[in-house]
C-alpha cells in the first residue's frame, strides 16, 4: 500500500476530491497547511508598515491506497490540480506498512 500526500491549491480541493472519487477512492483526509515554496508570498501595507505574507494557504490531501491504484490516483490528482502556474503544489508518495479500519478491525488493502 502507498500513502499519497498531495499539497494543492485550496480551491482545487473539491475538484481533486471528485476526481479521486471517480477512480473509486472512498476515503481522504485533508489538512489546512501553510506552504513556503518557489511561489513567494506578497507584501502588503498595513497602516503604512510592511506586512509580508510569506506563507500561502494550501490544502494537504492524504490518501492511503493499494499499490495497484497508486499510479492512477497520482495521475488524477496531478491532472486535476494543475493550473500551470507557480504554486500548483507537489505529490509525495511513501510506503504504507499497515492500515487498519478501526470500526471493523479489517487490515491491509481491505482497510484503505
Amino acid at each position: 500500500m502507498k500513502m499519497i500526500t498531495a499539497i494543492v491549491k485550496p480551491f482545487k480541493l473539491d475538484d481533486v476530491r471528485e476526481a479521486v472519487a471517480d477512480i473509486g477512492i472512498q476515503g481522504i483526509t485533508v489538512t489546512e497547511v501553510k506552504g513556503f515554496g518557489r511561489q513567494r508570498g506578497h507584501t502588503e501595507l498595513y497602516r503604512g508598515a510592511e506586512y509580508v505574507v510569506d506563507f500561502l494557504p494550501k490544502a494537504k490531501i492524504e490518501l492511503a491506497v493499494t499499490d495497484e491504484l497508486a499510479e492512477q490516483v497520482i495521475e488524477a490528482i496531478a491532472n486535476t490540480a494543475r493550473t500551470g502556474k507557480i504554486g500548483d503544489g507537489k505529490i509525495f508518495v511513501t510506503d504504507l506498512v499497515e492500515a487498519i479500519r478501526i470500526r471493523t478491525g479489517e487490515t491491509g488493502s481491505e482497510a484503505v
Partner: protein
Amino acid sequence: MEDIQVAARVTELAYALDTFYFLVMGALVMWMAAGFTMLEAGLVRAKNTAEILTKNVGLYSIACVMYMLCGYGIMYPGAFEGGVFQSLASIGSGILTSSDNTAADVIASGGDTYYSGLSDFFFQVVFVATAMSIVSGAVAERMKLWSFFAFTIVLTGFIYPVQGFWKWGNGWLNVGNGTVGFLDFAGSGVVHMCGAAAALAGVLLLGARKGKYGKSGQVNAIPGSNLPLAALGTLVLWLGWFGFNGGSQLVVSDVENANAVALIFVNTNMAAAGGLIVALLTARFWFGKADLTMALNGALAGLVAITAEPLTPAPGVATLIGAVGGLLVVASIVTLDKLRIDDPVGAISVHGVVGIWGLLAVCITNPDASLKWQLIGIVSIFAWVFSASLLVWFALKKTVGIRVSEEEEYEGVDIGECGLEAYPEFTSAE
C-alpha cells in the same frame, strides 16, 4: 395656578430639561467607554485581547471612584465647600453628599442655577474616563496590568483634574470666564491631548513591542486581530461624541442654546465624515489600498479636531477642519513609526497630534481666540501632563516594573495577566 406659580413651574421645567439633557449626553459619553474598548480590542492581537478588555473596564471603574474621591474636588473646588480636603474628609459621611440644589434655590436663582449638581458630576466623570482610555490603547500588548491601574489612579485622581481645573475649573487658563484666553470648548486639549501626553510618556519609557521594528530599521506591521470590533468601536465613539460635544454646551433650554446644541451635533458629525473620507483617500493614494484602520482613525481625528470648537464653524468649515485632521492622522501615524514610537492603535496621533490641530483651528473660526493663548494652553497642558506622567511611569518602572517579561509578551498578556484567552476556541496563526 397663579402667575408666580406658573413662572416658578417654568423655571423648574427648564431646570429639569437641562438636567435631563445633561444626563442623556453623559450617558452617551459613558458609552464611549465601550467604543474605546472595542476599538482597542480590535486593533491588538488575539493573544492580548482579554487583557485590553480588562484594562478598559477596569480603568473606567477606577476613574469613576478616583474622580469621586478627589478628582472632582480638585477640578471644581467650589463644588464642595472646602474643596478637595473637605471632600476627602467626607468619605466617612458618604463622599459626594447626595444633596443637590433645592427647588427654592433654583427658583430664586431665576434660572441661573440650571441643572443638577450631580448631573454635572456624572458628565464630568465620564470625561476623565475618556482621557484615561486614550492611554490604554497606546501602551497595549506589553504593559503590566497592575502598573497600568496604578497609573490610572494617579492620572484620574490628580494629573487630569489639575489641568482640568486650570481651564474648566476657572483656573488661570480660563481668562475672563472663558471668553478670552485659552479656548477649548469640549476638550481637544483638556481631555484628548491630555490623554495623549500621558500615553506618550508611557510609551517612551515602555519601548516598542517585540518585533515591531527590525534591526535594519524596517517597520513591521502587526495587524489587528478583529477589525469588525475596531469599526464598531469607532461608530460607538462617533455616537458618544454627540454627547461629548453636545453636552458641553451645558444648557439646551432656550432657543439660542437649543440651536447651539443642534449646530454642535451637525458639526461633530460633519467633521468625523470629513476626517474619514480624507484619511481613506490619503491611504489609498499613499499606500495603494483603502486601509480601513486608517479610515477609522480618520473619523476619530475629525472628531478630536472639532472638539475644541464645534460651535463657531459653519458645517462646511467643520467638515474641512475634520478633513485636515484626517490627513494629519495618517501622516502622524507613519511618522511616529519612523521615530520608533510604537502606538498599536494610533492613540497619540489621533488624540495628541490632532488634538493640537483642533486647538489651533479654533483661531480660524472663533474671533475671540488668540493664537498666543492657544499655544500657551497647549504647551502648559502638555508640559504638565507629560512631565507628571513621566515621573509616575518612571517611579512605577523602577519599583514594580511596567513591562511584562519577554516570554509573557510572546505568549500574550492574556494568559499571563488574566489567566484566560479571549478566543480560546479559535486557532490563531503564529
